[in-house]
């Protein structure tokens, strides 16, 4: 197989804010590449630049220096509509607070990105139901967000992120609002999707979450601190261990 185009490729990517109190360099010349099929955790304390990095590769913000290619497209050349199209077709977002529309059911929530892709209503419904089935919520398609648990809401959000078959799933603290058991379920889902070929970037400050990635990128003070590969913890196995009535060790997820 010839070398695939990296999903993300940055060179000297920088973001400087001009504030009243002076210039703040939120991201300082970061160069890295994320290949298709990777499961990457982006780590760092708050103010480290990881959120800025995520906003830039998520096409929610524009760099003030350097280059960023998403699936081979140089985003710094795109206008607002161009960035919107990249977000729509090549990226799928998962947020800490789920961000589901409260007035409509799970199916319509999942279908939302397809609305902006100009897909007709029938196809939208079909594909939304398929995406919900993929995250294990087929029978909850017509529940509203308030009728779903936190974990189920996050699954709906993941289905929404997947529905346009993006090149990259970008999750910002996806387990931050969930209890540890539900968090494991969600991480297990990410791992499963990754095994099926979806490239996933998890942005987190939580080392426990990062353990489930095969590659960990750390930021500090706007700079790339480290980029390491590791053996990922298996969330499914950890869950199975939790469910076992036997006196298992309290530190869940060590089973590998």
């Amino acid at each position: 197989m010839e070398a695939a185009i990296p999903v993300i490729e940055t060179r000297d990517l920088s973001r400087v804010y001009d504030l009243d109190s002076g210039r703040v360099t939120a991201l300082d010349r970061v160069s890295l590449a994320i290949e298709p099929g990777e499961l990457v955790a982006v780590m760092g304390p708050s103010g480290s630049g990881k959120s800025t990095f995520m906003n830039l590769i998520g096409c929610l913000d524009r760099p003030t220096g350097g280059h960023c290619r998403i699936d081979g497209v140089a985003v710094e050349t795109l206008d607002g509509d161009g960035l919107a199209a990249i977000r729509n077709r090549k990226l799928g977002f998962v947020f800490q607070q789920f961000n589901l529309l409260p007035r409509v059911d799970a199916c319509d929530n999942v279908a939302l990105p397809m609305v902006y892709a100009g897909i007709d209503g029938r196809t939208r419904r079909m594909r939304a139901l398929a995406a919900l089935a993929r995250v294990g919520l087929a029978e909850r398609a017509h529940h509203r967000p308030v009728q779903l648990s936190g974990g189920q809401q996050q699954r709906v959000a993941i289905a929404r992120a997947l529905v346009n078959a993006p090149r990259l799933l970008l999750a910002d603290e996806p387990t931050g609002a969930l209890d540890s058991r539900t968090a494991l379920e969600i991480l297990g889902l990410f791992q499963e999707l990754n095994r099926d070929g979806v490239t996933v970037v998890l942005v987190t400050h939580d080392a426990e979450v990062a353990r489930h990635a095969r590659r960990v990128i750390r930021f500090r003070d706007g700079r790339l601190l480290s980029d390491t590969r590791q053996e990922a913890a298996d969330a499914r196995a950890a869950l199975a261990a939790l469910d076992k009535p036997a006196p298992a060790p309290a530190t869940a997820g060590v089973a590998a």
Partner: protein
Amino acid sequence: MSLLEAVRSALSAIGANALRSALTMLGIIIGVAAVIAMVAIGSGARERVTSQIKSLGANLAIIQSGNVTQGGVRLGAGASSTLTDEDSRAILKEVEDVVAAAPVIVTRAQAIFAGSNWSTQITATDLDFFTAREWSIGEGRLFEPEELRRGEIVAVIGQTVARNLFGDTDPIDQQFRIRNVPFKVIGVMAPKGQSALGQDQDDVIFVPLDTGRRRIVGRNYARDASVQTIMVKFASEEAINPGIEQIRALLRQRHRLGDEQDDDFAVRNLTEIANTATQAATTLSWLLAAVAGVSLLVGGIGIMNIMLVSVTERTREIGLRLAVGARQRDILAQFLIEATTLATIGGAVGIALGVAAALSIASIAGWPSVVSVDTILIAVGVSGMIGVFFGFYPARQAARLDPIEALRRE
């Protein structure tokens, strides 16, 4: 997203805050209803004035005798009978563009028929009067020239007199008395309705000029063939003012007035008076429409206000939509459609209320109801435009949100 889907989603957003949306719409409802009702009232009033003017007859001038000075006391118009039949004939013959000139003597008298009596206006005139007033006969016939010349004791009566004096009896060929003179009814005029001053124009009895002069009014007029007024009809509106000047010159000459003497008659341009009345009615309807327009404006501002609140409340939703690929114009369109839907629903309800109000006011005031399709279309258009206009600023605020900021907002 198709427009239909966009409207459906706007409706669901509007329905999510039903009470708030209803209150917001109330502004537009009141505004649109006020515009429709006020415009209907204004044009109803104008229509009434116009129909009254039409009933008067177009391009008319009235010459009143009098305005004489006796020993330094100016007696005003009608104080003395200075006009004559001859003046009337001379005007018809010598002044340009005069279509008809009718000498008129008016008095009030009691008419008696069998067991009933009725006080009414007696108008003694000739056939030119009916030409000038554009008034046609309803039943029977008008005077024959021979009857006019010989001063025969015949009468043509108005609808009100026919009803009040004769009741169910067919008045044609009946005899009735005015001041003990037995008149024969030869015709009943077509109905004419109210005059611009609110007078019932059908409450009248017409008699030949000479008959009236000799049999009803009395000696004064009989002696010198004088008349009270001469009604003149011109061929066109433009001919009136030059015609009036010619009449003035002609009458001064005929009455042998010196340069230093005042006119012993007065000429009034009725069309001018009518036009002034129409203008006043038009001004009134504009005024009403403007007041109603202000309330529509206030309704629009209400929509803008609520849309701004809505944008603030739904900042996260906007952020999410941007994150999943909505372009700025998608967000702009979403909120514009929402504002327009709000305004249009309000407009529709307002139209229903406004039409109902206009119809009931018209029926109470006895006016022609003039709720035109135009007004309704304009009201729909205007309320839609209000949605777009007052929705634009909030929608643009929404579209310009920074997705990162918007997603972070609680």
